[in-house]
């Protein structure tokens, strides 16, 4: 496996060549600042681009063309990285060597070219995409775990860039005009910093030449240097909201001052794994396996906000017991009161996950992005060594820099259906 970085007209190309895969994945990422209104506009614009274009006049025509091209998939998703918004387009095609038609790769590139350079923006498609986006936000309510996570984030990240959904906001959808869509499109293709990655088994020189020809970006700005601001969190009073539920959803939050790339970054990663990643973590053992209080419990470190969120679900009458167990477990970690075996299990969990991440085209593309933008080497051995070098005392010191700041419960109402 080899990563080659190339820059052409300010566009950064990552060529990752490997014989592992039978598909080739091309990813384009356009970066911009993140705010609620522009996220909504950019997401709608991206959705319109992947719906149809002037060469494939409607959704059906585009879908049929992609089916014809051996199930090539054209995806468009809105993401965020720290306080940046990313419009990401993906093209996943089978390796052209499988196809007898020598024009196959050119045909696929034509679809990408039409998507990006020959848009067919019209009111009907805008109306449809607005409706889809509204429906998406409404559906968040139906899935109670997702809804609880959203309510938790809304309150925890009030006035913080992390609050912004890269898909935008429900209340901004109706305001979006066709002029804004067109302006956002122009800005994206002409100004937005752009990174293109290609993962698969191909000839790099030929790929480089074909992509430059098919995608003539000329005036895009250079990639941003800064991706997040250090904005500390203050303590908030706990919140309990209610609705008709069989099970309460519990979120507990630790905040600190260790951000992505800091000296204590890897100890924090190991600390989160020790607490609640995987079936051997301390919280899984204590809350699920020993106390039988919950089906799942996990801890998640957000390195751009320096937050560790702990999430679980259980009967209402067990919430206090679970909270006490979680707090007790964390206090023990702060005192170094956990076994070497537990730490080794967390370390092995991360080592296995890092190694596995190099087997996925999507992850490889992201690892290359991280290498470029966040100075994390594109090197499995480097990451493994960082994890191996973390000592128990480093984990304890990282834990001491965290404090409880917020607890959120989406709970069942009184006299609601009895939980099991």
């Amino acid at each position: 496996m080899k990563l080659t970085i190339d820059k052409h007209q300010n566009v950064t190309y990552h060529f990752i060549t490997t014989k592992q895969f039978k598909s080739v994945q091309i990813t384009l990422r356009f970066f911009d600042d993140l705010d609620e209104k522009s996220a909504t506009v950019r997401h709608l614009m991206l959705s319109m681009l992947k719906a149809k274009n002037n060469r494939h006049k409607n959704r059906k025509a585009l879908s049929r063309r992609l089916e014809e091209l051996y199930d090539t998939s054209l995806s468009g998703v809105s993401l965020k990285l720290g306080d940046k918004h990313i419009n990401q387009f993906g093209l996943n095609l089978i390796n052209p060597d499988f196809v007898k038609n020598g024009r196959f790769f050119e045909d696929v590139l034509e679809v990408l070219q039409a998507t990006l350079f020959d848009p067919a923006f019209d009111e009907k498609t805008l109306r449809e995409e607005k409706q889809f986006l509204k429906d998406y936000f409404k559906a968040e309510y139906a899935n109670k775990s997702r809804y609880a996570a959203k309510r938790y984030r809304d309150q925890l990240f009030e006035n913080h860039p992390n609050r912004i959904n890269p898909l935008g906001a429900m209340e901004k959808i109706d305001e979006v005009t066709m002029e804004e869509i067109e302006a956002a499109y122009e800005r994206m293709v002409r100004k937005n910093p752009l990174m293109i990655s290609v993962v698969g088994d191909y000839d790099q020189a030929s790929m480089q030449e074909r992509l430059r020809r098919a995608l003539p970006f000329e005036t895009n700005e250079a990639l941003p240097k800064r991706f997040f601001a250090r904005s500390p969190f203050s303590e908030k009073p706990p919140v309990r909201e209610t609705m008709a539920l069989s099970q309460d959803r519990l979120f507990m939050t630790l905040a600190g001052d260790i951000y992505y790339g800091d000296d204590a970054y890897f100890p924090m990663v190991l600390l989160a794994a020790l607490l609640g990643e995987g079936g051997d973590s301390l919280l899984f053992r204590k809350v699920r396996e020993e106390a039988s209080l919950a089906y799942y419990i996990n801890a998640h470190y957000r390195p751009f906000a320096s937050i560790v969120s702990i999430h679980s679900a259980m009967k209402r009458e067990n919430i206090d017991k679970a909270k006490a167990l979680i707090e007790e477990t964390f206090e023990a970690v702060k005192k170094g009161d956990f076994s070497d075996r537990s730490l080794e299990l967390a370390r092995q969990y991360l080592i296995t996950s890092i190694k596995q991440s190099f087997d996925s085209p999507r992850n490889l593309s992201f690892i290359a992005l991280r290498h470029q933008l966040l100075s994390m080497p594109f090197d499995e051995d480097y990451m493994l060594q960082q994890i191996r070098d973390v000592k128990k005392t480093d984990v304890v010191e990282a834990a001491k820099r965290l404090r409880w700041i917020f607890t959120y419960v989406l709970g069942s109402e009184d006299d609601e259906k009895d939980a099991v």
Partner: protein
Amino acid sequence: MKKTQYKTFRETVYHFQLHGRLDVYLIQKPDYSKTYVTLSAPIGSIHRRYRDEKGEVKEAPSGAAHFLEHKIFERDGRDISEDFSLDEAQINAFTEHHRTTYLFSATNHVLQNVERLFEAFFFPEFTDQGVEKEKNIIAEELNMHLDDPYYEQYHTLMRNLYHFHPLREDILGTKESIAAMSTADLRAMHKAYYQPEKATCVVVGDIDPYGLQERLEQRVKLPEKTMFEPLSQPLEEPAHVKKPRESKELDVLLPSVLVGVKFLPEMHMDVKTRIRERLSLSILMSLLLGKSSDVSEAMLDAGEINDTYGLDVAVEDSYAHVLIGTETEKPEAFEASLLEALKNFPEATITDADFRRIKNQLVGSFIHGLDSLEALAHQFTEYIQYDIVFYDVVEIAQSITKEEILSLARRLDTSNASRFIAKPKKA
């Protein structure tokens, strides 16, 4: 050891029978860091009956297959997942309607982890205390699903499509059946269904096949043959549905509709024919109702579907159905358009070009699937139970004729359809 090369796809599959009893397949994947291993037993939520060593027919509580799945990795009151983790393997398991699969992905010590998986699978140690403790955990898993309106939608539709079929039951069981589960039930179900002759192991990764075989032959013990026997449910499922329509107010903001069309697979149909029928039905549904179809375009233009619109085809030994669903403000109009499209399917609209296009799509989708070790292992297991190697499926699909598709379309009977609408609660 049998070695088969699939040159078109540049893949190699090895097969051997461990101790002449258990089929092990290795799909070689050069350059991958991880190895993905599955070990499956033909027991799912639809299986509850067995014959014990005295020849008596018994039935375990509903949810037994799933409960077993929770307890297989326990030994001496300890969860052995730790042993896998320390050897760079992450384990998991899942229960479907017709199968239970245990799996791990490992980046080191693969052979040791395979041995460990066999040991756990064939020689679990159930304790009363462990079973009792697990009841609360499974009850919380069920509670999590009970808060999901789409889960309720799916299960209600199954109960409305089928009169007697055990598909009507939740994979997890019920609050009552979970509480009633005993260690004896689990032991008996394990004896009946976890037999080497009926299990399948699939290894996908960069592994030496001969080293794998040698190690397993030397180190893995298989259980002795047992008098316990799995029994299928006696079924007299009628062709018509139990209840054609149901609506219910659930905690959603947007109505959601799910339509099921039931087929009865012809009994005693040979497995090859069944697979052909499954593939034909998938092709038919893609052509007729897929996202690139005229029908889907018309429904989108009429505001009857949104981008959640999708369909799923299931054809198994004892059941077959198509499910089509969407979130929509116009659930009744969606149902009417859909049933009309199925009923008055204009055969002339399917052209040879459409047919070629869908076949291209099938080939592409197959090749894409080879990059996911997980998907490959599961698909391989799915087909090998019918003695079909997954790599031959594309050829079978390619040989399906337009006439076969059209004749299948003529068998679609919309009077065997049921629909469920989840409606928002009134303010």
